[in-house]
């Protein structure tokens, strides 16, 4: 059998970037605009939301044989993500009694193609958790370090919202927010009556066109990726423009194996990868290596980059790589709102996602759990997709029929058919997204027994929710019922209780994982310094959420973008000063 030979490409790039999501896309954009030559490696294929080859936007459910069911795509047949929690030939495992679900998008732009576009800034207190509460960790940076970069990200990418002056949910440089839908006005009114604030969402969707991108045309389908580039995807807004500078070599199908290092200097000098279409071993050389493969993939890459000098994995003299893995908490509830039956029909698709949300409004010092959460809302007369009509037997006896008489649950025939019309658009949903407390005992590591189809050792997870998160989920459920009752609604299904951790989703299900190569001032308990530069390897940087010590309840994409931009500026500065 032939031994695969590693062919070294002759060219040495100024920067090699691994991963084309929010972090890698922003670094490629900033560094190439500054004049650097960049090799941008992406494990998945090319993707351009405007190319008809890839477009699912504005398709009808009957254009899918499964009517949009999520058989091969977790969020439905038209969702933009290529990949999911399970990818054939790319396994991972969990230590018995623990659980983690790892969502990967293998495509240009990564998970930014299908994400919820929720673009929140972390607040001043989010960076100071240990100082303020005695548990968790402080960042080596504060809101004042991030504010100018959040501003620049707002201007470059675009985000709508409203000025509210809330300390914990800082305002940005907002485009105008879309008006509330009917059920959102009802939620706001109900929230007001019980002291839950409901304010315009903050989503990176262009309610006014900026730069060369189109404005939102209100189809509600951001999750399918936008052919007008009217929302933020790293593919459309960062990677494709970066490639247009002529200085970025995009290498799709590059599944990275290791970060290469110079045995003498200990510096990173490139990346080895499997070229997926040909299944050949390749490498690309660079003066600076930037990792943005996603929180867990970046940790895996570091841990797999072992050498005589870095026996514990690259940049891991602290032993912290892989540790403090944390995902947002999530719990949800649905409700039926009788007042919304027999609605007048009109197009209320709106933008992709809710037009309103509830930022955290309480003081954890007065509660039995240490961290807050925000609430996202759903509902409306949306496009019927797979799943429509299931469970009618749990609803159609809750209110009298058209004739005013009580109705037996379930049924069939003309009367049932009419019920589907009557109940259409009368459901709402709410979902809490909370801040977890990062723990050393929640981590990913290299599985000693398993490799993927490329022969790359895989990850094994060890993750358990703690009391803090379970109590937070309980509080979410209580709040959801309060809001539903204040709306005159009827909660659907049984209220989740202790038997299900109050409906707390399994770790990884919210896809907000961070923390596996956290930054800090002390090289003994952190991997990166405050410039996301490895303590151990000065020309190695990490610009995805692996770098973050904590995440607030703030859906970290906007912070990834800001931090990647800040790190890119630092790289440019250090190269100019000849420090790297």
């Amino acid at each position, binding site marked *: 059998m*032939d031994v695969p*030979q590693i062919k070294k490409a002759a060219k040495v790039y100024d920067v090699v970037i691994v991963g084309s999501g929010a972090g890698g896309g922003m670094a490629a954009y900033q560094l190439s605009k500054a004049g650097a030559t960049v090799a941008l490696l992406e494990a998945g294929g090319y993707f351009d939301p405007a190319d*008809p*080859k890839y*477009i*699912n936007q*504005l*398709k*009808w*459910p*009957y254009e899918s*044989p*499964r*009517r*949009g*069911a999520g*058989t*091969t795509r977790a969020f439905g047949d038209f969702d933009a993500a*290529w990949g999911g929690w399970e990818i054939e030939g790319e396994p991972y495992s969990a230590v018995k009694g623990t659980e983690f679900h790892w969502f990967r998008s293998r495509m240009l732009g990564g998970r930014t193609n299908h994400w919820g576009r929720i673009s929140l800034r972390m607040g001043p207190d989010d960076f100071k958790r240990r100082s303020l509460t005695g548990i968790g960790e402080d960042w080596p940076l504060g809101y004042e370090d991030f504010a100018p970069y959040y501003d620049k990200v707002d201007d470059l990418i675009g985000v709508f919202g409203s000025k509210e002056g809330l300390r914990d949910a800082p305002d940005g440089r907002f485009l105008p927010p879309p*008006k*509330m*839908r*009917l059920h959102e006005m009802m939620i706001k*009114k109900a929230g007001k009556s019980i002291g839950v604030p409901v304010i315009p969402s903050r989503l990176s969707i262009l309610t006014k066109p900026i730069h060369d991108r189109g404005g939102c*045309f*209100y*189809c*509600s389908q951001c999750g399918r990726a936008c052919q007008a580039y009217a929302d933020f995807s790293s593919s459309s807004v960062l990677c494709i423009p970066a490639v247009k500078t002529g200085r970025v070599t995009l290498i799709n199908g590059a599944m990275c194996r290791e970060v290469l290092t110079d045995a003498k200097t200990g510096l990173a000098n490139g990346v080895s990868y499997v070229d997926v279409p*040909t299944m*050949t*071993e390749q490498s690309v050389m660079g003066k600076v290596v930037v990792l943005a493969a996603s929180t867990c993939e970046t940790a895996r890459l570091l841990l797999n980059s072992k050498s005589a000098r870095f026996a514990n994995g690259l940049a891991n003299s602290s032993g912290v790589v892989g540790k403090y893995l944390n995902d947002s908490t999530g719990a949800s509830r649905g409700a039926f709102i009788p007042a919304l039956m027999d*609605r*007048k*029909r*009109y*197009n*209320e*698709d*709106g933008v992709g996602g809710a037009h309103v949300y509830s930022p955290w409004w309480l003081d954890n010092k007065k509660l039995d759990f240490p961290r807050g959460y925000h609430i996202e809302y759903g509902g409306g*007369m949306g*496009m*019927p997709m*797979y799943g429509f*009509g*299931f*469970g*009618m*037997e749990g609803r159609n006896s809750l209110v009298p029929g058209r004739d005013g008489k009580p109705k037996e*649950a*379930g*049924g*069939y*025939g*003309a009367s*049932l*058919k*009419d019920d*589907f*019309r009557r109940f*259409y658009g009368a459901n709402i949903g709410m979902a809490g997204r909370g801040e977890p407390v990062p723990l050393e005992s929640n981590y990913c590591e290299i599985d000693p027994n398993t490799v993927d189809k490329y022969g790359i050792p895989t990850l094994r997870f060890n993750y358990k929710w703690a009391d803090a998160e379970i109590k937070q989920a309980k509080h979410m459920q209580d709040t959801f019922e309060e809001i539903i009752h204040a709306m005159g609604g009827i909660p659907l299904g049984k209220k989740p209780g202790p038997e299900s951790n109050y409906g707390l989703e399994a770790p990884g299900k919210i896809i907000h994982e961070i923390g596996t190569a956290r930054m800090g001032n002390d090289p003994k308990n952190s991997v990166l310094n405050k410039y996301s530069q490895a303590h151990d390897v000065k020309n190695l940087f990490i610009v995805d959420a692996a770098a973050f010590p904590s995440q607030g309840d703030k859906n970290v994409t906007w912070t990834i973008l800001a931090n990647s931009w800040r790190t890119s500026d630092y790289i440019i500065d250090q190269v100019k000063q000849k420090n790297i």
Partner: protein
Amino acid sequence: MKRRDSLKAITLSSLGFAGMNPQIAAAESITPPDVKPLKVPGGRQKFEAERDAKLNADKFFTPHELKTVTILGDIIIPADAKSGSASQAGTPAFIEFMMKDQPQWQTPIRGGLRWLDNVCMKRFDKKFADCLKAQQIEIIDEIAYPGKAKPEMSQGVAFFNSMRGLVATGFFTSQMGIKDLGYVGNTPNQWEGVPADVLKQYNLSYDE
């Protein structure tokens, strides 16, 4: 494959690039040759297009099962003044596809159909599809209302709940069903807020 295309494939794959790089040659030798080229529709990944083609070529329901599914579908969603029936909207074909697409449906639905036939055989000495309309409705009435169904009919209730869901999804995600429901979105537009008459109806205002 057209002869011109097959010549092109031979040139590029078997003789051209493969001859130049031993790594690629080694990788290709473990890849089975494509039987026929498949056109990947827009928005699909190649593996999805291949999977769909295979599922569409397979058959799951027997003619008798499909006939029963069709009758049940039209009992659940019949034609009325506003729109047609489940079968007129193509629902049986959708349910057939789902059996293959999500195989966890196969046992409950196939088994449920047999359960139904068995109940009908015992009572009417005929399978459900061969029963008179009144006999069919007599049985359906015993499984369509979970709140008042007899305990011995519980498996039938569970089966009918699944069928009700599948038929409703199939119908209301069809062109006919969407029109019936009155969903008027999925088209470029400007969102100007809730119409004034609706605000008035709900006694709401944007100025609050």
